[in-house]
């Protein structure tokens, strides 16, 4: 289970049969349904993703939730995507790597973790309306895909609705203002199409204190139709974004702050709020695609994309100083409770009343740097090269991932005799991630030194071992310089697939197969003192041969009733971040012969599509086996990072999905959805425990008794019931109530070992406390949204086209329920001395209380 809480709410309903997307009608009048959907997109665009790190694990996630990739009206998926995503609902409990996204037929997921980097095109909803989505194990026309859902977004200029729109929205979530401008010309007589879209999303401070948001997105696309058969498309898009993040924190701090939205990442500097954890990303994409209509019933789509740029997340780093984090356990009243209850009470009083005691004390960090005059001897290994100045004890660092991505895909769709389809595809993806650390701000000092303070502490008499770069020892670094770890991960994947789908009067069936070849290796760019023989240069290459098989059938009772069943079996290579124990300083991996993850999935259900009633019921059962994971956290006693490399991770997911929509009258509609799932860890995992800054092995082949623990950080049960009123006068309102249950906290594997319960009696309460997994109480929310579309008088027509003004407003969590725990984790430290599970309490994230989104759009 991957610690990053990137919500992958890429759900939507797909029309069951796979038709090629036809060109949209030249009509700018928004239908009522797309009105709602557009609105939902806008709302979801603004739900933040919180990255969950106990410490500074490398964070490769993007910073935005996928907006609703739905243009459909399936009640279940509409609820799942829109109403349930504030509670971080994940469809079927799958991690984000089970969902694929293609743009113009080109695969977009990161090869390093399988996540789709939605943040890289956040704010471009206007041009991403053409979506072809299949959910579950159904066949697609653009790729073999994965078992969660597969989406292809067609952003080609000629496929965009010919329209100009300008919209402005206000909200109180992670951004407060959004302005969007889009202009599409549609395909003109000369065969050219052009689209431009730009948006700015901004907040000085979002819903959570100390978080700011600053993003500008751009999109340009040009299409040229050559003759009748060739369509060439070129697009460039990007979303340079910078935002201040929120950290998960402890209940104790949240109580002292008086809010569940306490954010430990910021503090006042000269009267302004300064956030230490700022994510800055800009990774533009260039896409070039070619659609070749070979014949009327055969198409070859080829595309190539390239992306480059960096994602940097800042954090405080320090060398031999007191911990600057305001929620460090020694600064909390609970630390003093046992020995000095009077001072503990005085601290609680002081900390509740003075916000500066709860946040980062920037002044203190600057002071420490300014009074620390030091001379560094033999800088860069040159004898006698001594530099004197203020050596920073605290700096602001950036952990940077500089990515280069190349993707290529070609797909042949052809219709065979009898209306059956044959699809064949070939893809190649290559990614190189350069990971390194950089000094972002010296905080008042003159320089910082490139040393590993943890290794230095462990081996005080060995000057070499504390060097991060033994070829340039005692290196002085200043703002903008790289220091610390520096390595590349190279991955490439080649895949080929084919699919047959057959249609008969009563039965549709399909069969698809894929074969792929994946390679990855690490390439160290500095030789460090701890692992001089295993840090620099290329590591051994890991190669995986994988296959996938998918098939299913749909039985059409009549035009309205369908039964279907699909199954898939496939293998996937493990992600390198789950395989390398500590890639920052060495190339050791979990085992020499890595296994691929084996996935088996089955689903079956019933669909009813009547004019006044839509109903769907789906059952599923999925197992994943042989997965790996690496967790890292900072251990106070060792004053070092501890890595848990887990292997033999098996999971099982099964459950039912139900949805219905009934028209009670011409204007009133009732919708309901329910997801009942059970997601378990299905094996006893094995842990291999190392200390990041020594060669020590703390545990080998430790058994983690993880069998039957629940998959955390998603409601395993979710229900919603909503009622909509649509007026013939072009306005609508909707009220939906939701209930979430079976939410579990991510557990610390070390607490589920023999060592953790050693010596405790079998049924003793302490043993139970240590072992059990925390479950959160069920929560409910109520959402409201409404909108109105006003067609302006004909006198205001622009170039003969009518002008529309559309208003949308939505309030999520109308009843302001601030107790919804959407994520978090048990701290990875465990108090082995006293077995006190409250010594290192869990860190939690809460879902926002009542929040709104209101927009006004001008369109013609």
């Amino acid at each position, binding site marked *: 289970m991957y610690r990053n809480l990137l919500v992958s709410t890429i759900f939507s309903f797909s029309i069951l049969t796979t038709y090629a997307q036809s060109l949209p009608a030249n009509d700018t009048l928004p239908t009522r349904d797309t009105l709602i959907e557009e609105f939902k997109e806008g709302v979801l665009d603004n739900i933040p993703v919180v990255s969950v790190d106990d410490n500074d694990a490398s964070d490769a996630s993007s910073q935005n939730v996928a907006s609703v990739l739905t243009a459909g009206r399936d009640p279940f998926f509409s609820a799942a995507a829109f109403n349930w995503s504030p509670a971080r609902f994940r469809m079927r409990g799958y991690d984000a790597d089970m969902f694929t996204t293609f743009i113009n037929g080109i695969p977009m997921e990161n090869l390093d973790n399988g996540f789709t980097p939605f943040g890289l095109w956040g704010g471009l909803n206007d041009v991403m309306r053409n979506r072809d989505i299949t959910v579950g194990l159904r066949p697609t026309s653009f790729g073999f895909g994965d078992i969660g859902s597969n989406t292809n977004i067609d952003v080609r200029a000629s496929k965009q609705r010919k329209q100009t729109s300008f919209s402005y929205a206000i909200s109180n979530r992670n951004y407060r203002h959004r302005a969007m*401008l889009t202009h599409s010309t549609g395909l*003109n007589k000369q065969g050219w199409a052009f689209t431009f879209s730009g948006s700015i999303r901004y907040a000085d401070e979002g819903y959570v204190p100390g978080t700011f948001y600053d993003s500008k997105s751009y999109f340009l696309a040009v299409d040229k139709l050559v003759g009748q058969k060739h369509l060439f498309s070129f697009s460039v898009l990007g979303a340079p974004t910078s935002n201040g993040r929120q950290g998960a924190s402890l209940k104790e701090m949240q109580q002292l702050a008086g809010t569940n939205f306490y954010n430990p990442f910021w503090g006042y500097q*000269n009267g302004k709020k300064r956030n230490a954890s700022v994510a800055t990303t800009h990774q533009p994409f260039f896409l070039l695609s070619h659609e070749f209509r070979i014949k009327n019933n055969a198409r070859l789509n080829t595309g190539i994309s390239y992306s480059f740029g960096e994602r940097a997340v800042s954090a405080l780093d320090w060398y031999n100083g007191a911990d600057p984090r305001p929620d460090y356990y020694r600064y909390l009243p609970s630390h003093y409770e046992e020995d000095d209850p009077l001072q503990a009470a*005085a601290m609680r009083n002081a900390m509740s009343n003075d916000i500066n*005691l709860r946040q980062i004390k920037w002044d203190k960090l600057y002071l420490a740097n300014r009074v620390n005059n030091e001379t560094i001897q033999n800088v860069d290994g040159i004898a006698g090269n001594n530099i004197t100045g203020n050596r920073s004890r605290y700096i602001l660092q950036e952990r940077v991932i500089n990515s280069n991505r190349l993707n290529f895909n070609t797909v042949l769709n052809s219709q065979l005799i009898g209306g059956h389809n044959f699809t064949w595809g070939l893809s190649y993806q290559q990614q190189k991630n350069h990971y390194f650390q950089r000094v972002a701000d010296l905080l008042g000092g003159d320089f910082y030194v490139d040393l590993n303070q943890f290794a230095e502490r462990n081996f005080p008499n060995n000057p070499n071992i504390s060097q991060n770069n033994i070829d340039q020892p005692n290196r002085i670094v200043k703002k903008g310089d790289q220091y610390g770890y520096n390595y590349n991960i190279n991955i490439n994947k080649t895949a080929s697939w084919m699919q047959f789908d057959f249609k008969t009067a009563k039965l549709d069936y399909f069969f698809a197969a894929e074969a792929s070849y994946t390679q990855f290796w690490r390439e160290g760019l500095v030789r460090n003192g701890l692992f001089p023989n295993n840090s620099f240069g290329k590591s051994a290459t890991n190669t995986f041969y994988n296959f996938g098989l998918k098939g299913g059938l749909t039985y059409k009772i009549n035009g309205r009733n369908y039964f279907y069943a699909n199954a898939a079996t496939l293998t996937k290579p493990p992600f390198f971040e789950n395989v390398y124990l500590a890639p920052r300083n060495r190339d050791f991996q979990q085992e020499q012969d890595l296994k691929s993850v084996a996935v088996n999935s089955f689903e079956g259900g019933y669909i009813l599509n009547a004019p006044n009633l839509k109903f769907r019921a789906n059952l599923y059962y999925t197992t994943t086996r042989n997965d790996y994971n690496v967790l890292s956290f900072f251990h106070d006693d060792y004053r070092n990072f501890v890595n848990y490399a887990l292997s033999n991770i098996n999971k099982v997911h099964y459950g039912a999905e139900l949805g219905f929509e009934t028209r009670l009258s011409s204007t009133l509609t009732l919708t309901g959805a329910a997801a009942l799932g059970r997601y378990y860890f299905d094996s006893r995992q094995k842990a291999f425990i190392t200390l990041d800054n020594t060669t020590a092995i703390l545990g080998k082949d430790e058994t983690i008794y993880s069998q039957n623990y629940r998959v955390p950080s998603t409601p395993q049960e979710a229900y919603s019931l909503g009622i909509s009123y649509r007026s013939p006068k072009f306005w609508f309102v909707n009220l939906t109530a939701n209930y979430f249950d079976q939410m579990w906290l991510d557990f610390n594997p070390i607490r589920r070992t023999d060592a953790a319960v050693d010596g405790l009696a079998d049924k003793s309460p302490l043993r139970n406390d240590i072992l059990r997994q925390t479950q959160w109480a069920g929560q409910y929310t109520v959402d409201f949204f409404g909108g109105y579309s006003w067609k302006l008088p004909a006198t205001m027509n622009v170039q003969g086209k009518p002008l529309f003004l559309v208003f949308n407003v939505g309030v999520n969590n109308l009843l302001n329920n601030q107790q919804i725990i959407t994520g978090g984790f048990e701290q990875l430290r465990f108090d082995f001395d006293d077995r006190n599970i409250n010594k290192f309490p869990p860190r939690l994230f809460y879902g926002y209380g009542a929040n709104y989104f209101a927009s006004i759009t001008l369109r013609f």
Partner: protein
Amino acid sequence: MKHLKPGLFYFLLLISGIGLFFSCKKTFDEPALPKDPDLKATHTIAQLKAIHVEPGVLDSIQEDMIVSGVVIANDKSGNLYKQIYIQDETGALQLMLDASGLYNSFPVGRKVFVKCKGMCVSDYGGMIQLGVKALTGGTPSIQAVASNLISEKVIGGSLNNPVKITEVNEIRDLVDNDMQDPLLGNLIQLKDFQFEDTTKTYSDTSAYKQTENVLIKNCGGAKINIRTSGYSNFSGVRVPSGNGNLVAIYTVYMPTRSDKKQLILRDTSDVQFKGFRCGSGPTTTKDIAEVRQLFSGAPVTVTAGTSITGIVISDKSTANINAQNLVLQQGNDKAGIVVRFTAAHNFDLGDSIRVNVSGVSLSEFNSTLQVSNIPLENATLIVKGKSITPRVATIQEINTNFETWESTLVKIADLQLSGGSAGKYSGSVTLTGTGGTLVMFTATAATFSSQSYPASVKSITGYLSQFKTTKQIGIRNPATDVVQ
């Protein structure tokens, strides 16, 4: 395409304009350097410490009291842990603060203001400390100020204030039985000290990291312990082998029977032992007369780099002189002095020696001037078999010039001997001659002490000394010194 261009142009312009507006990244303004807050001290450190009268008691401070001081020591080297020391004109105080990295906020030289109301004064072994009264499981104790409450109680002020170091000349002048003494917890400077055992490291380098003592001494023999924690970053550093000055915090631990005084270092740069050890290093040979001049009634330390030469005129083989002592006469008609070593010496009568008397104590023992506590390695043999020609004088002349002729060889003619015990040399025998009487003293342990003395002699040769008010002469061997 024609109608595309102007539209496109305007849109691009609009968006890039808005984009530029938002893209200027403002860098954060840096905070100013700290200055003194708007607080004034209401009490001095001495007044605060005066609240604590009885050792071991926890005295709570109920009134609004503010003391201010300059930080003189912190936890930077790891030798101190969760404490800092501050000083003002009246004394110094140890503050107990529960945080690591205190040196980052409280560098040496920073002025701080302590709001003492609600705090507690107590002591540890006689060292007064300021902390907070706590109830640990019902038992009261003094604890350090909790991490997040430090900023409430200790307000930091300006940086780089002057730090006062008090020069201490004599270790015995340091007070070790009064908790209120202003030098306790304060920085003192000692001059001309060296480590006794130069093979040691400052503290324990084993995994136990115990706190250990290392002894330092000066050439006069005064000594004191330096106490260093095994957790300090210099615990494994070898102590310097030279002699010189040192700055340290003066502390005591009163419960011990002896050696209550101890010093705590801030770091190794406070120890500047770069000079020559006692008794080594270049010296200038001074006349014994000049050295004698240094004495003016009270014991004094001979300047560094001084040595004296002379010929031994006492005889250890006849044991009429303490085995650690010898009488040294520079030369014929020159001055002499008693030299006392720290252990029995090996020099014979007639040895020409050089003695390094740097830093050595020049004092009177029962009225005889001596240089004392000299390590044996400070004296080197030049050549054997020399002799001094005794000064021929009468008792009258001797009495007149006694101070100048003390510890030199004289020869007196025509004397009558009387007194003593049973006619033996042992003890005080009266010599009567021209101009008066003189006592001839022989130690009981002398080899000839039980020999009978003659009633009258032609001459007696010996060295002059004083015992309180009695002027004396001592012989080496009656066979050579007493001529009948």
